């Protein structure tokens, strides 16, 4: 009898435990991923921020140095070049990708017979690694053997194209390769947006006899606002992160002509033994990205709550 009683008490306790487990299970399942993100993302961010205020050079150390590394960063000529380049590259890359992406999407949206095939063609560069893309374009733009020679062989004897080795023009070759790679992706986003637009308004405008270009500029494109926003976020974020493409295409050169913050951070941290300066450049990159991403994510999440 008493053993039975204790049995049932035990049973109750186990039930309780199982009940607790059932309630907590979702949190327990999420916990490992969440912990990993907490440590490897947010913990590492704090760590890098701290390094940017330390005396770290060849090896990381934790001696406080105040703003020394930050001053050193802003006094570095290459960093100034990298920021200028990011501005040139980023703005051209984003504008060209948006314009070309939108135009291609509008043209593809005209009931084109080969739509599926063409769409695949425009998108395939996105599947390639930036290292492959850079290698391909490096060969394509090779001043001695590539486009220049081909055009000359086709009879344009005065054709010159040596941007790849011209310090003033090299950054534009990065823009060309970057736009080639990403514009198809932007096209796919716009195409999806175009397909989502309500046809009734368009038909009404058509019946009223509005010309096609007016329908696009007055009715359709304004409705693509959210797609513009998503595309812009993706492109800004890609531009700031651009690293592989530059490494493979120009190696940051000639000289420092195509250095970007991402390549600057890598070379100062890993080859020039200036970990502190590298860390502060990384923090700067994070701040730039966060300034754009956080308000966007905030509005998105708030929107989805409603």
């Amino acid at each position: 009898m008493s053993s039975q009683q204790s049995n049932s008490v035990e049973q109750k306790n186990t039930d309780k435990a199982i009940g607790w487990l059932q309630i907590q299970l979702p949190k327990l399942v999420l916990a490992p991923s969440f912990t990993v993100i907490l440590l490897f993302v947010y913990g590492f961010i704090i760590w890098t921020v701290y390094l940017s205020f330390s005396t770290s050079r060849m090896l990381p150390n934790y001696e406080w140095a105040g703003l020394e590394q930050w001053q050193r960063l802003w006094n570095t000529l290459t960093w100034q070049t990298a920021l200028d380049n990011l501005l040139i590259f980023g703005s051209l890359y984003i504008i060209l990708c948006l314009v070309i992406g939108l135009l291609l999407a509008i043209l593809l949206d005209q009931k084109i017979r080969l739509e599926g095939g063409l769409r695949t063609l425009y998108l395939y560069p996105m599947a390639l690694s930036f290292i492959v893309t850079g290698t391909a374009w490096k060969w394509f733009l090779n001043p001695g053997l590539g486009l220049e020679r081909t055009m000359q062989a086709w009879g344009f004897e005065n054709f010159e194209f040596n941007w790849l080795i011209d310090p003033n023009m090299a950054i534009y070759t990065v823009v060309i390769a970057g736009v080639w790679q990403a514009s198809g992706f932007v096209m796919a986003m716009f195409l999806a947006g175009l397909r989502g637009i309500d046809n009734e308004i368009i038909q009404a405008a058509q019946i009223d006899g509005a010309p096609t270009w007016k329908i696009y500029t007055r009715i359709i494109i304004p409705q693509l606002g959210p797609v513009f926003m998503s595309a812009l976020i993706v492109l800004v974020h890609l531009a700031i992160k651009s690293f592989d493409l530059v490494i493979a295409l120009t190696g940051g050169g000639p000289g420092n002509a195509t250095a970007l913050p991402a390549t600057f951070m890598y070379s100062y941290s890993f080859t020039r033994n200036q970990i502190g300066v590298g860390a502060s450049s990384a923090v700067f990159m994070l701040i730039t990205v966060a300034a754009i991403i956080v308000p966007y994510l905030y509005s998105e999440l708030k929107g989805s709550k409603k």
Partner: protein
Amino acid sequence: MNKNSQENGFRFNLIGRAVIYTVLIIVAVIYLAPLFVMIVTSFKSLDEVRVGNMMALPLEITFDPWLKAWQSACLGLDCNGINGYFWNSLKMVVPAVLISTFLGALNGYVLTKWRFNGHHVAFGMMLFACFIPFQIVLLPMSQVLGWLGLANSTSGLVLVHVVYGLGFTTLFFRNFYEAFPSELIRAAVMDGAGFFQIFRYILLPNSGPIIVVTIIWQFTNIWNDFIFGASFASGESAPMTVALNNLVNSSTGVKEYNVHMAAAIIAALPTLIVYIVGGRYFVRGLMAGSVKG
């Protein structure tokens, strides 16, 4: 009002349509040109590369550049070609994709069907992790990998890619499961199904499309990664992208453009195949996502 104007899209005259097709086809040719040049160059001998036109088809097709790229090209002092690095990438990408996809599915399931207080904060924090520039984690990560004894190893790269892929995989599954009817889950709970049973027998069987999208996304991202590979795995354990860059950019002496192009195509093949085979589903998934976003 005739029947045609009921349809979507616009009617252009013949000239208009000709212009549209011409533009689209010219753009297609431009997009294809670099790939075309890579392929023809990889089948030419070095002499032919040097004297001939980049766009010209090879006069004499040779497979030597491919063989050399695969098994005897020199990367620094080591002259065994890129095949070892190709396997490195494969050994890295398969476990990393499977683990991150599985965890993303579980996370998405919890964040939509088993919400708790603060789930918005948890998701927001994971979402932001998708967008950080990886430079911010490079220095601490290389230190931690050293402590764990995973520096310069494929397992180290698997860990890195799982960690930084979690944000995206969680996002994909969360958005997908958001639309999954919660009544079904409630009914299953009434019938006494547990947390994992519901996941295993109700959600997973219906997750086909999003699993495909996530796997394609993760596969291409991880295969194409360069910065983590270059920072955490040098020498023997380097992935394919790092090896290709070493081959192309640091080879001393004669630049063997034909070998470089063959190696670049080999490096691009897995993602191109995945894209061609699964691209249709991927575009569909992307479109679903971007319409929402």
